[in-house]
C-alpha cells in the first residue's frame, strides 16, 4: 500500500494547531498553574502569595481531615468499582443468554447509556429523600434509622448506591459486547468438555472477558475518583458539612469555598499524579489485550 504524505510541514502543523491549542489552554496551562501555585501560600483576598516549598503537601499529610477523606475515597472507590462491575457482569451474563444474536435488543439496552449524570443525581435525591424516598423507607423497614445528610454512613450509602447505579449501564454494555464477541463454537466446545455452567464461566468465559474487565476496572476507578463529583454535589446540595466527600470534592471545597488555593492546588497535583499512574497502567494493559486475539 502506498503511504500518503504531506509535501510541506506547514499543513500538518496547521491541521494540528486547533487540537493542540485546546489541549494547551484547557489542560497544560491550568495543570502547570496548579503545580506552580501548590508551592505558594495564597492570600485569601488575592493580595499576594508567598513561596512555601512543599509545605502545602506536608500540611496535607498532617491534616487528619484530609487523611480521613482520602480513606473514605479509597473505600468509596473500591466499593463503587466492585459493585458496578460485578452487578453489570451478572446482568450482562443473564442478558447474553437471552439475546444471543438478537441485535435489536442490544440496541434497546444501549439507551440506558443516555441517562444524563445530573438526572441520575436528581433521581438519587428523590430515592433517598428523608421523608418521601422509597430507599429511606426500605432502610427503615430493615431497622436502620436512615438519615441522609444528617448521618455520615447514611449519606455515604446514598453516594455509593447512586454512583454504582449510574455506572452499571456503561459496564453492562462493555461486558455484553465482550461476551458476544466470544465465538459461539468456543462456548459449545466447552459445553462438550464441561458439564457445569458455573465452572465453564470461570474457566472459559471469565478469562476471555478479562481484557474487557481490566479495561473497565481502570475506567471505573477513574469514574469513582473523579466523575462522581456531580452526583456528590447534587446529593449534598453543595453543602457537605459533616458528610463524607471524595478527594476531588475536597479540592473544590478548599479551593473555591475555602479560598485556600495553595492547598487545593497541592491536592490537585496529587490527583493528577494518580491519573497519570492509572493511565500508564491502562496502556500497559491495552498492550496485553492485543496478545489474546
Amino acid at each position, binding site marked *: 500500500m502506498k503511504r500518503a504524505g504531506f509535501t510541506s510541514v506547514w499543513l500538518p502543523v496547521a491541521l494540528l494547531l486547533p487540537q493542540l491549542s485546546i489541549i494547551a489552554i484547557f489542560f497544560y496551562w491550568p495543570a502547570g498553574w496548579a503545580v506552580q501555585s501548590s508551592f505558594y501560600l495564597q492570600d485569601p483576598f488575592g493580595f499576594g502569595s508567598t513561596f512555601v516549598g512543599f509545605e502545602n503537601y506536608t500540611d496535607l499529610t498532617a491534616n487528619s481531615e484530609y487523611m480521613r477523606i482520602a480513606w473514605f475515597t479509597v473505600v468509596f472507590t473500591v466499593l463503587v468499582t466492585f459493585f458496578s462491575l460485578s452487578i453489570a457482569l451478572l446482568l450482562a451474563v443473564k442478558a447474553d443468554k437471552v439475546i444471543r444474536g438478537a441485535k435489536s435488543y442490544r440496541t434497546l439496552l444501549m439507551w440506558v447509556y443516555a441517562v444524563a449524570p445530573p438526572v441520575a443525581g436528581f433521581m438519587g435525591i428523590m430515592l433517598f429523600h428523608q421523608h418521601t424516598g422509597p430507599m429511606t423507607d426500605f432502610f427503615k423497614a430493615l431497622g436502620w434509622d436512615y438519615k441522609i445528610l444528617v448521618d455520615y454512613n447514611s449519606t455515604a450509602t446514598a453516594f455509593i448506591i447512586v454512583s454504582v447505579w449510574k455506572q452499571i449501564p456503561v459496564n453492562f454494555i462493555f461486558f455484553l459486547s465482550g461476551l458476544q464477541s466470544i*465465538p459461539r463454537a468456543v462456548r*459449545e466446545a466447552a459445553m*462438550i*468438555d464441561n458439564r457445569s455452567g458455573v465452572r465453564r464461566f470461570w474457566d472459559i468465559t471469565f*478469562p476471555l472477558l478479562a481484557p474487557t474487565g481490566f479495561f473497565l476496572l481502570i475506567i471505573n476507578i477513574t469514574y469513582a475518583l473523579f466523575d462522581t463529583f456531580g452526583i456528590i454535589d447534587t446529593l449534598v446540595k453543595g453543602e457537605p458539612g459533616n458528610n463524607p466527600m471524595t478527594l476531588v470534592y475536597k479540592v473544590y471545597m478548599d479551593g473555591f469555598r475555602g479560598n485556600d488555593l495553595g492547598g487545593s492546588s497541592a491536592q490537585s497535583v496529587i490527583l493528577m499524579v494518580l491519573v497519570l499512574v492509572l493511565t500508564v497502567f491502562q496502556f500497559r494493559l491495552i498492550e496485553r489485550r492485543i496478545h489474546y486475539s
Partner: protein
Amino acid sequence: MAQVTLNGVGKTYPNGFEAVKPSSFDIADGEFVVLVGPSGCGKSTLLRMVAGLEDITAGSLNIGDREVNDVDPADRDVAMVFQNYALYPHMTVRKNIGYGLKNRGTSAAEIEAKVQDAAKMLDLSALLDRKPSQLSGGQRQRVAMGRAVVRDPALFLFDEPLSNLDAKLRNQMRIEIKALQRRLGVTSIYVTHDQVEAMTMADRIIVLNGGEIEQIGTPAEIYHNPASKFVASFMGAPPMNLIDAQLENGEIRMNGSTVLTAPSDQAYAGPVTMGIRPEDVVIDEAGSTPFTIEIVEELGAHRLLHGRLAGHAFTVHVGKESLANAGEVRLQIKPDAIRLFQPETGKAI
C-alpha cells in the same frame, strides 16, 4: 464405541423453519459416516443435534443403547471438531487438549500421560506450551483433533473440520483423519459440503438436500447409482451429464433425432432425464452418437472434453493418451452406463 440410531429425528427452529425433516438411519459401531450436501441443507443442524448443542424437536436419538435426547452434551460421550477449531484462546495447547479430561475427574498424572500420547500421535509434542494464536491453521486443526482424540469418546463429530485449510493441507489431513479413525475405531459422523471429502473418507455417505435425506449408501453406490438427479449432479466432479429426453420402446430419443438404447427392461415410457457419467463413454469412430468438442480441459493425467451432444451441454472424461482437439467425434455409450430419472420429481426410475 457405539452405534448411533436416529429415529425420525427432526429440527424446527423457534422461528418455525424446519431445517431438518424427520430422518431415520443407523450408524454401525466403528463406522465412518459422512453427511454431505450443499450449504444450508441442515448438515450442521443434524450434527449439532447429535452433539446436544441443539434441541431435538422431533424423534429420538440413541447413542449406544441409551436415548440421549435430554442428555447434556458433556454426558453424551461425544467429542466434536469444529470448523474454526474453537480452541480456547487463553489456554496452552496442553490445557486445550486436557480440559475435557480435567472435568471428568481424571488425575493430573493421567491427563499429562494422555495429552502426551495424543500430542505424539498428532505431531504436536513440540507445541504443547504454545497458545493457539501462535499456531498455524494446520497446527490448530491438529490441536482440535487432539482435544477429541484424548477423551477416547464413543463418537467423533466433525463439522467441516478441513474447510479452513488450503488445498494441499486439506488433502493431507483428509488422509490422516481417516487413518486415525481407522486406527482408533471410533464411530464418526463427518459433515462436509465437499463431495471429494465425502467420497474419499466415508464408509457410508448420507446425502442431504433441503433438510431431507436424498440417499444413503457407500461411496460407490452413491456414485454409480444416484437415487436422484440432485445426487447425480452433486456427487462427482465433473458431475453426471443430465439430458432431458424421451423414452419409448426401449429407446431414448434426444431432440427427436439422436437415439440411444435404454438400459434393459424399462417398462416406463414418456419424458425422462438421462444421466451419463463423463467417464462412461468412449470416443469411437464406429460409435452411434455424434459429439461436438468445444473446449478441452487439460488436467495432466486426463482430459475433460466439454461440448454438445444433440444440442445439450455434455462432458466427456478421457485419458491423457486420447485426442484433444476441438471438432466432431463419435461416442460409444453403453446402455448400462445410462441412468434414468423422472424429470419432475428427479427420482431415479
